[in-house]
């Protein structure tokens, strides 16, 4: 098991190095940052000074090495556009994205698993079929359309919830949170639904399919033949077995919530890293784009590692070190 973990960590580092290369390549080959930062009125001296300041006069390999060195320390240089350290900007923006992602991730996970179980157990019931049909809509509507529809209904027509921004936030020094004010919580609802709905329907359909599969297994039949009550069969025998395959895909889904946040943040003008990234693209603000890319990949890789560990925790067959000899 330890060997496996080491291998997985090594793989993760490799992935991050490749992403780092892509991020770095953007520095070299996309756009001309000097153009973007200085505008039309500039002297040759200005250009030289800025090139030097940004390190753009160094040879490729030196720049790449410096980039890696700095990236590990969380230093991505100055934003071309704002002239401030990228890490400062990211840290400012990250709480908004994380709070949104965590809320919609939880919603997707809890709602998806609960609805998946429900629709599997009551697969012939009317409500289960209605939910399944609605979920098709959830899967096929694009995220931005869901966002716009929600805004139209709850902000424009009913006027219950705000259509953009994060509401009032509380500054805790190292973190800004919208959880502590009413307007902050209200502002969170629509974006969280928009971001989580797709994942929730996916998880729900996945859980349902798996659960139906598991309920047909011999050991469920044997449990029934022993008179185990339905509740225990569904939640003790079936659910645990359902979760083994569900965990992998769900982990990836939750990772992609942070990536999908770009669209939601744009629709709701949510001041997170996704919106930051979109704005950075408009201005070819390479350091911000590169840092965003690295940040997202670190999160993806991290979530993947955690998912793998969960696998071990749930499935005894993978815990080779617990085996006490087979016969």
């Amino acid at each position, binding site marked *: 098991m330890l060997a496996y973990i080491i291998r997985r960590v090594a793989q993760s580092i490799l992935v991050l190095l490749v992403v780092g290369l892509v991020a770095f390549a953007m520095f070299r080959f996309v756009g001309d940052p000097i153009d973007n930062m200085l505008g039309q009125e500039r002297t040759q001296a200005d250009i030289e000074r800025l090139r030097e300041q940004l390190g753009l006069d160094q040879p490729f390999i030196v720049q790449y090495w410096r980039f890696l060195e700095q990236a590990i320390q969380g230093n991505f240089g100055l934003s071309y556009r704002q002239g401030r350290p990228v890490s400062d900007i990211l840290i400012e923006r990250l709480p908004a994205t994380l709070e949104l992602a965590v809320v919609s991730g939880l919603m997707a996970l809890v709602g998806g698993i609960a609805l998946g179980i429900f629709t599997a157990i009551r697969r012939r019931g009317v409500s289960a079929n209605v939910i399944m049909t609605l979920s098709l809509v959830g899967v096929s509507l694009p995220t931005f359309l869901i966002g716009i529809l929600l805004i139209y209904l709850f902000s424009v027509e009913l006027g219950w919830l705000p259509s953009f921004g994060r509401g009032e936030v509380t500054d805790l020094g190292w973190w800004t949170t919208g959880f502590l004010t009413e307007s902050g919580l209200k502002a969170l609802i629509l974006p969280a639904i928009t971001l989580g709905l797709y994942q929730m329907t996916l998880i729900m359909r996945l859980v349902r399919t798996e659960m139906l599969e598991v309920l047909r*297994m*011999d*050991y469920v*039949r*044997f*449990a*029934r*033949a*022993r*008179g*185990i*009550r*339905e509740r*225990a069969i569904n939640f*003790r*025998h079936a659910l*645990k*077995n359902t979760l*083994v395959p569900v965990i992998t895909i769900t982990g990836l889904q939750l990772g992609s919530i942070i990536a999908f946040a770009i669209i939601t943040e744009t629709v709701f003008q949510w001041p997170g890293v996704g919106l930051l990234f979109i704005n950075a693209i408009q201005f070819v603000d390479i350091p911000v784009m590169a840092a965003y890319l690295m940040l997202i990949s670190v999160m993806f890789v991290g979530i993947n590692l955690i998912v793998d560990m969960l696998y071990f925790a*749930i*499935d*005894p*067959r993978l815990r080779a070190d*617990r*085996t*006490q*000899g*087979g*016969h």
Partner: protein
Amino acid sequence: MTDTPVLSVHDLVVEIPTRHGVLRPVDNVSYDIHAGEILGVVGESGAGKSMTGNAVIGLLDRPARIVSGEILLSGQPIQGLKRDVIRKLRGKKMGMIFQDPLTSLNPLLTVGDQLTETILEHLKVGQTEARKRAIAALEEVGIPAAAQRINSYPHEFSGGMRQRVVIALALCAEPDLVIADEPTTALDVSVQAQIVALLKRLCRERGVAVMLVTHDMGVIAEAADRVAVMYAGRLAELGPVREVLTQARHPYTAGLMASTPLASQGRKRLRQIPGSMPRLGALPTGCAFHPRCEFAQDKCRQEPGPTIDRCDGRAACWFPLTAKQEVSA
């Protein structure tokens, strides 16, 4: 031992409605099993053996359903009972053992979890006592170092050991009836005999009534007291195992015997019954066996299929074989 059979099945009919008409995988089946007795049920694959067992224990898969007949457990009819009442009978009064021990156990729960769960469901005992009984149940089926192995997961046991665990599970709440549906089919030949011997021992020691489904005549000869032969959803023959094996009265049983190598029969040339069992949707009129039967006559083709009680009480055949008759060689 009382005279009331542990299990009594009368004229059981199971039907499956399909788009092409109603199928009858179990058609007018009647038999009794007494305490301490093993009834062997044989027949080709698809004869309705599993359906019969599933119907008794109340685990028929939709759309199959019991349409008529009676199932009495120690004299008490179980049809019409509430679902939850029948559930409580399962495990407590009747247990079931399935074919494949690899898939019968939940891979994510220890065998101890699965045993105590079953014991706690049916017996009025506490956690500690349940655990003690779980260990005793494993010991009884011959699992070495049961007190340690109780914390093992199913994948940590070999196939034969797993089937022992399955048997322990089926018996841990002390049912009066056990339905074993091909309990040895999925096992290595080397452990099959051990499992059969174990079932036989438990049946004798505990006085459990056992319905032992198999398509292996050798298992029947080894373990069963009486044998029921099924063909196309019906009982073809029912009688004490010695008599049926040595002097089959139904031509199908005789054919089965002739096609099985049995030590008791000495070296005889094996003969296969010509043709194959008809599909349920395409049963011939009259006796379902007549297209393959060398004794078939007009009556067999025209009259409704014979049942055991309308014939000689042992074989469902208008012209049962007599002692002198042999399937021609």
